[in-house]
């Protein structure tokens, strides 16, 4: 009998996992909230990193590795990061073979641009919609495998929970048909979660509407460990909106864009002044803190508001159109001004979760048979992700998870069908009960207004600058919201057809669980590292906190413990960007030349 793999999520990580699992001979069932071509990967703009041309400018995959570890303030496990950076050139070539319309040099080769936290041009790009183009290429390959009968898609299905047998092995999933509201279970020999980030917990973010973190949070309540939850990337340059924050890619600065505001009536290029070595291309955590400081503390924002200029007006319009067309369109459409002629007004916005589901080097969680890949895992970015490393880590982790899940399935003693020891019925009943309770919720509170309240609370207290007293108060407030969740009104009691309110009430419950993981993790980490910054503890404290945060679920709130970080290759050193980065000291036994 053919092994079957379930993949949840149709972004880059999910699609790549699906292709790999199908190539390994497994039948694949692919579940997604949206038609996979509309997944959040579509929003990624700037590019994908990989040292494809090692001789150019003196770059090397090891330099990419060092930049990534250094940029992540040494919190990432080094072995998988190193493997990823060495795999990166082949990944870019593979995507090129799939027909991604990467920008070209006059000779017809791939073109590369500069990105934050790196001194070499190693970012391949497709205009300023690279995520969209990579997603489409994988979507097309998956469509081909669908025609060949190797992949079956379940679009407009929401993952609900894992089916766990009596030994605690994952045997399948429960899911909701979003059109008929039917709950079903599906057996599998292994399950890969590629469910993206939790940005919607912060209300307005650069994330898509589906990025509530619910799937990961639901697994967390089933005993799946969550790691480094407190590390949330706030992107330096987004345009403000009522419904979301729209990203203005780092590639704008990679192509020469400058950040400034007025001081004493004159333009002040504060990043260039403070960080002469990297200038506007300092890593995101640093650029974000500087912009925040200039606007919030110094009150020097443009027009007295929380905004600074991102200026492209000195670059020829033809170059801008060719290399950044996608984001210029977004700015023109949503802000109503032409960024070729007037500097864009931007401010930091919640963007990415470095933390995620804990996985081993095969992308397997602490639950046997359950894997995770993409933004929802914690593996590759440490305390701060470098720009253009997300598309890479999503594809790479999918390339690891797919074959690893296939290997696990091959070694599984009893196939899923034989293990119907009631675990499928049990899981289905559990989920049906959750829904029948939600359908009955007729309290006074509105779920969408409560989500707003949650978003404002988290953005105010658990983003750029964090204080322990406020984190403590935030967790108290979150407990209060969990209590108030019980008095929600479901708003829509109709059964049988696309009840989005019922879905959202359930999602909100899990968003509150995940908000506590993020907040408590931040409260207990008394240091500053990467995106996590506490003025009361302004220094990195390797002795106490060069450790991975692990959150285990308990009904009363997350139980936090710590785990050693794999420092197998590069010795931690102070992270500074005002001067050139020093070459990382290699530990003994490392055979790789620099």
């Amino acid at each position, binding site marked *: 009998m053919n092994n079957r793999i379930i993949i949840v999520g149709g972004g880059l990580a999910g699609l*790549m996992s699906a292709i*790999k699992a199908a*190539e390994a001979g497994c039948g694949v069932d692919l579940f997604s909230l*949206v*038609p996979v*071509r*509309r*997944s*959040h990967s*579509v*929003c990624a703009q700037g590019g994908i990193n990989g040292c494809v041309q090692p001789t150019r400018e003196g770059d090397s995959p090891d330099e990419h590795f060092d930049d990534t570890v250094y940029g992540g303030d040494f919190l990432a496990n080094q072995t998988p990061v190193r493997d990823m950076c060495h795999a990166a050139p*082949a990944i870019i*070539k*593979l995507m090129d*073979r*799939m*027909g991604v*319309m*990467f*920008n*070209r*040099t006059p*000779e*017809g*080769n791939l073109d590369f641009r500069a990105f934050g936290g790196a001194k070499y041009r190693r970012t391949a790009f497709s205009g300023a*919609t690279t995520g*969209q*183009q990579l997603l489409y*290429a994988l979507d*097309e*390959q998956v*469509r*081909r495998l*669908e*025609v060949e009968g190797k992949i079956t898609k379940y*679009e407009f299905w929401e993952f609900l929970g894992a089916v766990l047998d009596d030994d605690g092995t994952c045997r399948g999933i429960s899911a909701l048909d979003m*059109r008929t509201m039917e709950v079903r279970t599906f057996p599998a020999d292994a399950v890969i979660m590629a469910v993206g980030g939790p940005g919607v917990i912060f209300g307005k973010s650069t994330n*898509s*509407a589906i990025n509530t973190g619910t799937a990961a949070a639901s697994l967390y309540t089933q005993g799946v460990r969550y790691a480094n939850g407190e590390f949330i990337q706030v992107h330096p340059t987004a345009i403000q*909106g*009522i*419904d*979301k924050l*729209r990203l203005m890619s780092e590639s704008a600065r990679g192509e020469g864009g400058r950040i400034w505001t007025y001081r004493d009536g004159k333009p002040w290029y504060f990043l260039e002044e403070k960080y002469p070595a990297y200038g506007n291309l300092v890593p995101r955590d640093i650029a974000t803190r500087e912009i925040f400081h200039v606007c919030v503390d110094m009150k020097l924002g443009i027009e007295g508001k929380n905004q600074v200029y991102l200026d492209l007006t000195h670059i020829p319009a033809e170059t801008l159109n060719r290399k950044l067309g*996608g984001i210029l369109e*977004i700015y023109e*459409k*949503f802000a*109503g001004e032409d960024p070729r002629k007037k500097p864009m007004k931007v401010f930091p916005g919640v963007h990415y979760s470095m933390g995620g589901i804990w996985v081993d080097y095969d992308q397997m969680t602490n639950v046997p048979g359950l894997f995770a890949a993409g933004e929802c895992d914690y593996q590759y970015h440490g305390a701060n992700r470098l720009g253009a490393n997300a598309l890479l880590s999503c594809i790479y982790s999918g*390339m690891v998870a797919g074959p690893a899940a296939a290997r696990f399935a091959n070694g599984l003693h009893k196939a899923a069908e034989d293990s119907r020891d009631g675990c499928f019925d049990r899981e289905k009943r559990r989920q049906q009960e959750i829904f029948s309770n939600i359908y009955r919720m007729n309290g006074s509170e*509105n779920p*969408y*207004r409560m989500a707003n309240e949650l978003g404002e609370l988290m953005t105010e207290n658990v983003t750029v600058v964090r204080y322990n007293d406020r984190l403590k108060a935030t967790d108290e407030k979150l407990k209060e919201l969990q209590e108030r969740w019980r008095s929600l009104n479901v*708003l*829509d009691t109709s059964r*049988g*057809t*696309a009840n*989005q*309110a019922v879905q959202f009430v359930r999602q909100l419950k899990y968003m509150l669980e995940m908000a506590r993981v993020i907040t408590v993790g931040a409260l207990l980490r008394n240091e500053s590292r990467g995106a996590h910054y506490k003025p009361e503890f302004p220094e990195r404290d390797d002795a106490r906190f060069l450790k991975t945060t692990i959150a285990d679920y308990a009904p009363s709130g997350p139980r936090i413990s710590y785990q050693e970080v794999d420092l197998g290759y590069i010795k931690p050193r102070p992270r500074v960007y005002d001067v050139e980065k020093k070459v990382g000291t290699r530990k003994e036994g490392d055979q790789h030349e620099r």
Partner: protein
Amino acid sequence: MSDKPIRLKIKRQNTPDSSPYWEEFSVPYTPGHNVISVLMEIQKNPVNSRGEKTSPVVWECNCLEEVCGACTMLINGGVRQACSALIDKIGRELTLEPITKFPVVRDLHVDRGKMFEALKKVGAWIPIDGTYDMGEGPRMAPKDQEEGYRLAKCMTCGCCMEACPQYNSRSSFIGPAPTVQVRLFNLHPTGAMNRSERLETLMEKGGIAECGNAQNCVRVCPKEVPLTKTLAELNKDVDLYAIFGMLKK
């Protein structure tokens, strides 16, 4: 003017088989709204203009920055994405309807599965040998990349399908968006190896002969995909293939 509320008239439908009905809403105006953020206001206060409690409106959306293609609907009779429909530009009187060329799931949410099925039919992919490392892809001239990229930005949103008079329940035409994707894969050096198969599908029932050259598609495309120009080129490709290509067989 500044305190004049946003008024919405929304065509709703409870199930795929039930009859549609209209419901009106009024949302307080603040600057910066778009159609999605107005619908979100209704979620926060699901009460219609007559003061009756009602269920929140169901619609599809995701990225909210006009790159995923999910939130296509008819806004004041025109097809477009709701996220980029800014109230300060389009005014405070809104009529929202589901697009008409696809079956309604509920309210403004439709099922555009047919579009993805059409992409299967035309073989809209590069037939690579596998995902293991086989070295570099083919070189490509920047001008070819630029042409390909313009076609590759199609987000399968369905605007062109809605506007096309030839795409309807009485015709078998697969519609402008999937047809135009043939050109993208045919201009890629590897994709070109299957050029003839793709052109042959366009010669079948539902193929390019059913395009009536109304040119509505290009006018509604939010991504400025050169639809009519590409359809004309494909027509030529198909004609030349019919005359010369078939002879070689």
